[in-house]
C-alpha cells in the first residue's frame, strides 16, 4: 500500500484515496503533427524498471492532479510535486539522487 502526500491540499493518505493516471510529463502532439509523434504521445510509454514519474489524482480528496516520483522495483515514493511542471523539479531530482546514486537523471 503506497502512502502519498497530495501537494495541492497537503493531505497524506493511503493509495485508495488516490487514482493513478499514468506517465507524467508527456509532450502533447495535436492535429497537424507527425503520425509517429502522435502515436508515441498516445500509446508509447517508458514503463521503466526503476525511477518513474507519474500522474496521480486525489480522487477522494481535493480532486486535483499532481505528480509523483516512485520506484517501480521497490515501490518507494521519492516525493510528490505540482502537476504544473514540465520536468521534475530540482529538489525531487536531488531526493532521487540521494536514494539512487546510479540514476541518470530525467530524460
Amino acid at each position, binding site marked *: *500500500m503506497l502512502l502519498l502526500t497530495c501537494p495541492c491540499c497537503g493531505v497524506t493518505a493511503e493509495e485508495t484515496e488516490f487514482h493513478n493516471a499514468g506517465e507524467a510529463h508527456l509532450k502533447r502532439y495535436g492535429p497537424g503533427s507527425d503520425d*509517429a509523434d502522435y502515436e508515441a504521445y498516445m500509446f508509447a510509454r517508458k*514503463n521503466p524498471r526503476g525511477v518513474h514519474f507519474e500522474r496521480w489524482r486525489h480522487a477522494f480528496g481535493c480532486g486535483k492532479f499532481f505528480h509523483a516520483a*516512485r520506484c*517501480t*522495483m521497490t*515501490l518507494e515514493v521519492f516525493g510528490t510535486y505540482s502537476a504544473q511542471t514540465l520536468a521534475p523539479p530540482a529538489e525531487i531530482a536531488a531526493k532521487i539522487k540521494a536514494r539512487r546514486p546510479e540514476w541518470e537523471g530525467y530524460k
Partner: protein
Amino acid sequence: MRRYSVFAIAREAMRQHNGWDRAWASPEPKSHYDVIIVGAGGHGLATAYYLGKNFGIKNVAIIEKGWLGGGNTGRNTTIIRSNYLQDPSAAIYEKARSLYETLSQDLNYNIMFSPRGVMMLAQTESEIRGYRRTEYANTLQGVETRFIGPNEVKRLVPIMNIHGPRYPVLGALWQPRAGTARHDAVAWGYARACSDMGMDVIQNCEVTGIESVGGQVSAVVTTKGTIGTKKLAMVVAGHSGHLANMAGFRLPVESVALQAMVSEPIKPAIDVVVMANTVHGYLSQSDKGEMVIGGGADHFNNYTQRGSWMHIEETTRALVETFPMLSRLKMLRQWGGIVDMTGDRSPIISKTPLGNTFINCGWGTGGFKSIPGSGWAMAELVAKGEPGPLAQAFSLDRFREGRFIDESVAAGVAH
C-alpha cells in the same frame, strides 16, 4: 526421449524407478542459432515447439533469465476460455483452447486439461445485454457459448448465493468446453518436446544486450556470452519494455501487478470456474482441493511481483458475498505476477522496427489461456517473416492506424 505410457510406468515399477530420463537437457549455448527465443515461459516454449513441429526449424535456443516457467506461467489462476467479443481475439483464444484439448496427447505429457466449464456471471442489466451480445458474436465466430438463467447457474454451482446482498445473479455466459489445466505442466511438457527435437533450453541466462548489423539483428549478448542468431523472438511478457529498450524501440505497454491466492484444501465443493466481474473476483477449485482465487490488477506501474492489499480485500469481499461458505476458509498463499497491459487490452504479435526481430507480448491478464494459440501464431510469424491469419490483426501498427481490438470495453474489467 522415452515416451511416457502405462507400460513405462509398469517397467519402471519393476526396477525401483531407476530408468527415468531427465525430461529435458540443460546444454551450454552454441555460438549460433537460426532462431533465438528470449523467455522460456509458456508462450516462448510454445513458439519454439510449433516452429519445430509446423515449420521444421529446429536449430533453436530458448533463453531464460530465471528458471523454466518461473514467471507468469507459474503465477496465474490456470483458467482457459475463449468467449471473447472481438473476432481476432475469439479466433486466437479459440485456437488455443482447441489445441489445449489434445495437448497432453501431442506432447506425451499430462497437462491435466480439465474442460469443466467457465461461467461469467451477469449481475446487472447491462451485463446481461453485454453477455447476450457476446453469445451472439461467439455463435458467429464458431465458439460454443450459451447464456443461461439464474436457476441453471444455481444448479451448476449449488454453493453460490444467487440472491447476493449487493448484486443478484441474473444469469451467466456459459462456455461448457472451457476449463483449467496444470500450468507448470504446460511449460514442462513443451520444454520436454522442444528438447526432444534438439532445441536448447538455456536457463539462468539473462539477455543484457542486442546486437544488430545494418538494421538486422545479428546476436544477443547474455550472461553466458554472445550468441549469434538469424532471427530473434522476444516473448518476455512483463519485461518486454525493458528488452524493447535494448533493441531500440518503445512499446505501447505498461507493466502492472495482478494478484491471486489459494485457500487451504477442502473437499470438492465447486466443479466449474466462476467469474464475477461486477463484484470482481473469480474462483475455481484445484484438483488438490484449494480454492484458486483471482481478482483485479493494480493501476500503477509495478515490477515487484507484489500488489496492494486493497485488491486482496476487494476480491475476498466479492467472493464471500457470492459464496458465503468461503468466509471461514484460511488462505494458504498469496502472490502477484507482472502483466503487460496494452492500450486496448489485446496482445501484440508483430514484426518490430529491428529487422528479423519479432515480439509477442501484451497478453495482460489473458496469458495462460492463450499459450498454444499464441505459440502457433508466433511460430508462423517467425518462420515466414510475415504474420498469418491468426496474428495479422495483432500487429504493432494497429496503434498508429487506430485499428484497436478493444477488449477492455468488451469486458469492462481486466480479464
